[in-house]
């Protein structure tokens, strides 16, 4: 359950990046977040993940007021959320397998489970054959899929995906989308930011559109 009330965020430039955003996503809901380049999609997702602070308003995630979480406790919020970063954020010095396993090590999962879950996550994005490659040796789309696998491997309760199919061909995009929809069926809340209008039209999920930091009707 995600709730935003009058959230405003300015990076100090002329126009604020987000302007009095109010909306909510129910538990187990799947929504598309769309809008032109620079509209504030990433900013919105970052606020939910607390990698950016907001200037005004209230943000509740699972009933927690995330503005009140002290920095040293941030990990409790982040362990609830799987985030697909727009720029992937893969570690170049770790192999694909290690990159995905790393997300589980970091939250203290046990070894046997890590092997199994990592393999499963890589299978879901169709990358088991690349498990020993390093990110710089992957194509753009392959890197993106590793980022997706890492976000999903811990079975988070919320998934925030920032244009996760931007570098993927339509076929694989559809498969990835189905992966997220499958998670939704298990009760996971999904916010899926995308520019792909075809994809948005082809599925029947709620669409949230922002333009220049404001919510607009789709």
């Amino acid at each position, binding site marked *: 359950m995600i709730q935003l009330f009058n959230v405003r965020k300015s990076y100090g430039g002329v126009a604020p990046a987000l302007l009095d955003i109010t909306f909510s996503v129910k538990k187990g809901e799947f929504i598309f977040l769309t809008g032109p380049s620079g509209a504030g999609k990433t900013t919105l997702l970052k606020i939910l*993940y607390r*990698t950016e602070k907001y200037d005004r308003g209230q943000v509740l995630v699972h009933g927690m007021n995330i503005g009140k979480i002290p*920095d*040293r406790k*941030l*990990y409790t919020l*982040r*362990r609830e959320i799987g*985030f697909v970063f727009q720029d992937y*954020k893969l*570690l170049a*010095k*770790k192999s694909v397998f290690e990159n995905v396993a*790393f*997300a589980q*090590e*970091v*939250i*203290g999962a046990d070894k046997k489970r890590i092997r199994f879950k990592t393999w499963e996550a890589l299978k879901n994005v169709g990358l088991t054959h690349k498990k020993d490659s390093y990110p710089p040796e992957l194509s753009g789309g392959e890197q993106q899929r590793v980022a997706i696998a*890492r976000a999903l491997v811990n079975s988070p309760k919320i998934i925030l995906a920032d244009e996760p199919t931007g570098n993927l061909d339509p076929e694989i995009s559809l498969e990835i989308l189905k992966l997220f929809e499958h998670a939704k069926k298990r009760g996971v809340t999904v916010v899926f930011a995308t520019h792909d209008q075809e994809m948005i039209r082809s599925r029947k999920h709620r669409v949230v559109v922002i333009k220049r930091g404001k919510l607009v009707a789709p």
Partner: protein
Amino acid sequence: MTTSAHTTISNIKTNLQVFLISVATITVAFSILGLFLVVFVNLNSFLTTWSKQVQLIVYLKDDISQNQRQGLEQLISANSDVESMTFIPRETAWANFKNTFSSNKSDFIDDLTFNPLPSSYNLKFKPSNDRFIKIHRFADLLKGRKGVESLEYGEKWLGAFEKFMLFIRIFLLAVGGLLTLGLILIISNTIKLSFYSRQEEIELMLLIGATPNFIRVPFMMEGMLQGLLGGIFALALIKFLQLYVKIQFQGSLESIARGMEFQFISQPFIFGLLASSVLIGWVGSFISIRQFLSPAHKK
């Protein structure tokens, strides 16, 4: 704990080059500091040994009165810099003199049937940096006293030598201070740079839900390991140099070391060096990791 050790090892493996560079830098740093300490300690003990031999000898007139002698003795005891005072009667002095000269020159002195030498007080001074100046000043004071025939304080070279050693000592201290400062700068830079190479990783860990301790512990362990390894290699290097010097200069060394202990690697030295290397590794990583974990740190 096991996980942390495991993470530490895999961290080191991933960034092996930076790790090795850090260890090498710390090794060199500590070798220099260690050798420096060795030189300093030995030079210092050398100085102390030599300077014990500096005495102020007060020769007395043959016709000195009991009163004058008492006044002199009081004056000497009143000087808190004087460590000991020995009275040498003219008979003893003459015996010593004859002993010295009859041995290696000619024996004309044995032919003398009267004693031409005076009695004297031999004063030893407490060790201190400006001892020589103090001796000089005290000698000036005594010079004018009645009953004092003349004064002698060691051969001239001993004074000059002591001053030179004082100068060297201060010089070495200055160099040592600079060295320590430099080492701290270099080590903290090395550790900071090794952290820069990890910045991405630390940030990602924070992003994907690691607890601060999970991040902190392996890095601190790595820092301490780095320091410890550097310390051990430095000790090995110093030991190696010691062996080399021993083998090359066995003879010379023995004749110099006679009556004087050369302190190459003592127990406290080893412990001190290892402890401070671990400490520096720990402090260095602690400071750097704080920078990254603090909320003020810009993403």
